[in-house]
Each structure stands twice: as C-alpha cells, then as structure tokens.
C-alpha cells in the first residue's frame, strides 16, 4: 500500500513541497516512493531518500513539454505497482501532471489539501474551501488517490534514510518545446524561509513606491512579498506573490502595507506568527486578522518606520 510523492525540479533540486509531503508520507506508511521529474537525479536521490523515499522513479523531461509524457508514464507505472495514493504539490508541473494523470486514469483529485490521513485502509484528505473558511474532509475511494497539497501544510524534516534507489522510467516526448528558461532573481532571503516578510499591495500607489517595502525588508533582514494586484501591474515579478496562486509563507512577523486582505491573499499568510497591517481604510479586511493594525497612510508610516529603524 505504498504512498508516492511527485517531485518536480525547482532550480536543480526537488521542490520544497515534495519534501514536506515525503515527511508526511513516511509518517503514514513504511512504503514510500518518489517520482522525480527533472535532470539532477543524483543529488535528488540523496535528498528524496533522506526525506523518506526508498525508491525514486525518474522521469527525464529532455527539453520538451513534459506533462503529457510524464502523466502517461506515471499511469503505466501506477497500474503495475498499485500505490494507495500519489501526492502532488501545487507547482505548475505538479498541477499539469496531476490533472493529466487524473483524466487519463479516471481518478478523482482532492486539491488544496492541508491534511492527509489514513483511517485503516481509507485515505482521507482535508482541504479548505470558500477562501479557507470551511474545512472539508474527503474520503478518497479511488486508487491511487490523487491529492494536491498546499505548500507548508506539513513541515519537511530529513530522517536518516539512505539515498533512494533510482529507477529510470521511459516517457514519450512532449508535443511542444521548451525554448528558454529564465530565473527572475529576487534579492535578499528566500521568501518561503524568511523569518520576517514585508509585503506591499496596490495601496502603495505605484511601482516606484515599492522601494519603501524593499527598504523595510532590508532593515529587518526580511523578504519582500506582494499581492497579485501588484504583480499583475508589473511592479514586481510573480516570484514575490503571496496567496492562493502564489507562495504560502509562515514567518514570525508579517507586515502588510497597503493590502486590503482579500481572502486569496490571506490564505497564503494567515498562519504567520504576528501580523502587522498598515491601511488607510479602517474597514479593510486585513485588520480582522492583524495583531497590530495601523489605520494610516503607507506613504507617511513607512518612511517614519524606516527612519526609526535606520536610527537604531
């Protein structure tokens, strides 16, 4: 009754969510394997093994759009090996492969999962719907049960597992080409690991004002976050986006400046230790979850904050 974890390659290493999922999987079952879609397989086998995978099935993308080929190969493999469940993260490759695998094999998917458990032989996945206000537990009857989990739902902890045994799996070429890959470097600490996150929203008023956020983050040794409104306006790259369709963060302190607190943003930061919000609208929903709310103009509060921090 194995549990498999799909792991896509992010900057040459297994995606952080896949390590979180492996940690969870090994608490549920002794038989855990990973399915790795990427090229740096040797390093990956070590990391995936440490996090609980005894075997890693390796799918190699080779410059083509990999999802269709990967889903096809995975379907054959799953039919031969009959895993109880396959767990995915929410990255673009995860979603592409999970969706295609589901359609190909006729199995249902639980998306946005924040908890996974086994009740005897029964797999139960929980997710939050309606913007994280309602929790739903779903019994997954299909085999393999496909669960797409939210990042940071579980904590990644390496165990003492040896490097996983690599089993290469052949896959068909994709009907599409990857011509270029670009990394949009963001400076400063990694958003998902930072202890302090300073985020800006549309309330800042313009791309140039985003400097205020950079400054505060820099002074606090924190990372820079943003809302989708700001990313869509092109003020900062997508890699800074926090929320339902962006990153999930759990820093000790989260500062939200000029952010209304739409539920799609809040699901990505509501589990932060302390939330500080600055917004000129006293009715802004962000104040409903803030430990400290300053009703005021970001363009006066932030410069003064910067001055005070610089003076220390």
């Amino acid at each position, binding site marked *: 009754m194995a549990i498999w974890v799909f792991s896509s390659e992010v900057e040459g290493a297994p995606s952080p969510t896949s390590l979180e999922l492996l940690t969870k999987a090994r608490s549920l079952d002794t038989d855990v394997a990973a399915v790795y879609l990427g090229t740096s397989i040797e390093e990956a086998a070590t990391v995936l093994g440490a996090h609980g995978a005894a075997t890693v099935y390796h799918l190699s993308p080779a410059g083509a759009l990999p999802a269709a080929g990967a889903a096809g190969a995975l379907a054959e493999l799953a039919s031969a090996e009959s895993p109880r469940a396959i767990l995915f993260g929410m990255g673009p490759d995860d*979603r592409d492969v999970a969706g295609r695998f589901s359609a190909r094999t006729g199995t249902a998917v639980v998306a946005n999962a924040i908890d996974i458990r086994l009740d005897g032989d029964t797999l139960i996945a929980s997710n939050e719907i309606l913007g994280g206000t309602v929790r739903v537990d779903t019994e997954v009857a299909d085999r393999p049960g496909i669960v797409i989990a939210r990042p940071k739902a579980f904590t990644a902890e390496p165990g003492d597992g040896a490097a996983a045994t690599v089993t290469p799996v052949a896959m068909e070429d994709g009907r599409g080409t990857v011509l270029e890959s670009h990394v949009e470097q963001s400076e400063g600490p990694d958003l998902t690991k930072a202890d302090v996150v300073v985020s800006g929203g549309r309330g800042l008023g313009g791309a140039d004002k985003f400097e205020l956020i950079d400054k505060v983050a820099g002074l606090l040794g924190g990372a820079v976050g943003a809302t989708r409104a700001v990313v*869509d306006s092109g003020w900062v790259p997508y890699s800074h986006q926090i929320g339902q369709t962006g990153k999930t963060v759990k820093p000790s302190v989260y500062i939200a400046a000029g952010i209304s607190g739409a539920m799609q943003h809040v699901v990505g930061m509501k589990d932060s230790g302390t939330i*500080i919000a600055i917004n000129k609208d006293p009715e802004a929903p962000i104040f409903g979850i803030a430990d400290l709310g300053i*009703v005021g103009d970001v363009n006066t509060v932030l410069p003064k904050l910067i001055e005070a921090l610089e003076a220390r």
Partner: protein
Amino acid sequence: MRIAVCAKQIPDPATPYELDPETHFVVRPEEQVLDDTDRYGIEVALQLAEAAEGTVTLFSMGPAGSMQGIRQALAMGADKAVVIDDEGLRGSGALTTARVLAAAIEKEGFDLVIAGTESTDGYTGIVPQQIAELLDVPALTFARAFSHDDGKLRIERQTEVGYDVVETEPPALMTVTSGVVEPRYPTFKGIMQAKQKPVEQITAAELGIEETGSVAAGQAITAVSPVPSREAGLKIEDDGEGFAEIVKMLEERKVI
C-alpha cells in the same frame, strides 16, 4: 482558427457564499456573474481571433440561471455560447466538469482551447489540464504573455522561479494568468449585440455522459466544519506616531 473558451458563471464573490447543509453544495443564486478569472481568457481569445479571422465560442458548465454571466462574456465580443446545465451535474468534481467540457468542445470542433488557471470559487486548478488530456492535445499552461505566428503558439509560462518560453502547434490548450492581458470592458453596442447572440443549452446526456455528479466523483465528503479564524488585535489610528507601535511590536517579537 476556432477558439473555445471555458468560462464559468459563479455567485457574486462580493456576497457571502452559502452551503446547503444537506448536500454541502454551494447554493447557486439565479443571478450569477462571469468569473473574473475568465475575462482574461476571453480577451486573449478575442485578440487571437481578431488577428487570425477566428471564431470565439464560450463553453460553460453549471446552472444557467438568468445567464447574466454568459451575456457579460458575449458582450465582450465572443460569438456564441454553449451552456451545459443539468440537474445531474450538481456537485460534480473537477474530473466530471472536465469530461463534460471536453465532450462539448470536441462536438463543436476546435483549434485552440483557452481556460483560466483556477476558478474563483472552486480553485482546484486542474480542470484545464484534464480537458487537454481528454482532448489529447498539448497544454501551454500558466501563460503570462503569448504570441501566435507561423502557425505556432508561443507563451511565457510562469514558473515558481521565473518563466519558460514554450511553444507548440494547434490543436492545443492554453491557460492564462491574470497578468497576461488587460480585459476589455463591454461597449454599449457589445451589450446590445450580446442579447441576439446564440446560446445553445445542452445536457450531459446529449453529450453521451451518463455518470455524473458525486456518483462519478470516486470520493465522498465525510465532514464539513468551520475553520476558526484569527482574532484581531490592537487597531490604532495613525497620529504620526503609528510607526512607534510597529517598532515596539518588532522589539517584543525580538525581530530587532
């Protein structure tokens, strides 16, 4: 080029959603709106159709209601709509939704299918990939920019760390993020014309899909409970000294 756009009608997100206590399904009001997420797909489709003398057909599954959302989409400039409304489809999961949409799109014929990356109310974020697999076409997903020339469709595909440039040839499916284009607002003329545009209403059975609803889901809801929300703390009006409260809290939390 025949372009199919998946567009969903949803309850107005500005009004709180209600769950039916028995079925756990979202209560759908008569008046629904076009999912904002789908305005981007419609805009991309219109731009492609304008450049390549194409047609834009909307595909929507769910309670048709007053069709307000569909009319909004037609008012932007889409040519026609196919709405699959069937009592048996209530409570359908993503896969059933994809099966229904794929069957309707296939029946109509297509060169390109366009969808959003995730719906505002359901946000499973996999219906489009399922449709692509069912139609057996490549999928260019998470487009934040696109171009179409020499018969090739090329996008900037958003990744976790940046973007990839990927390309394929139709028939294909593409999902678009909200940063990809600026959706147009319907003009008065568009709104008037939308009233005359064809809207075809069909059932799942007419598409040859028998197993629908939660029966086909392969899963069952066992519990539904409210999520405890965070408590609000101190809220103060900035009198010029608001920053000092922030400094104080940062000190308390030992960040500085």
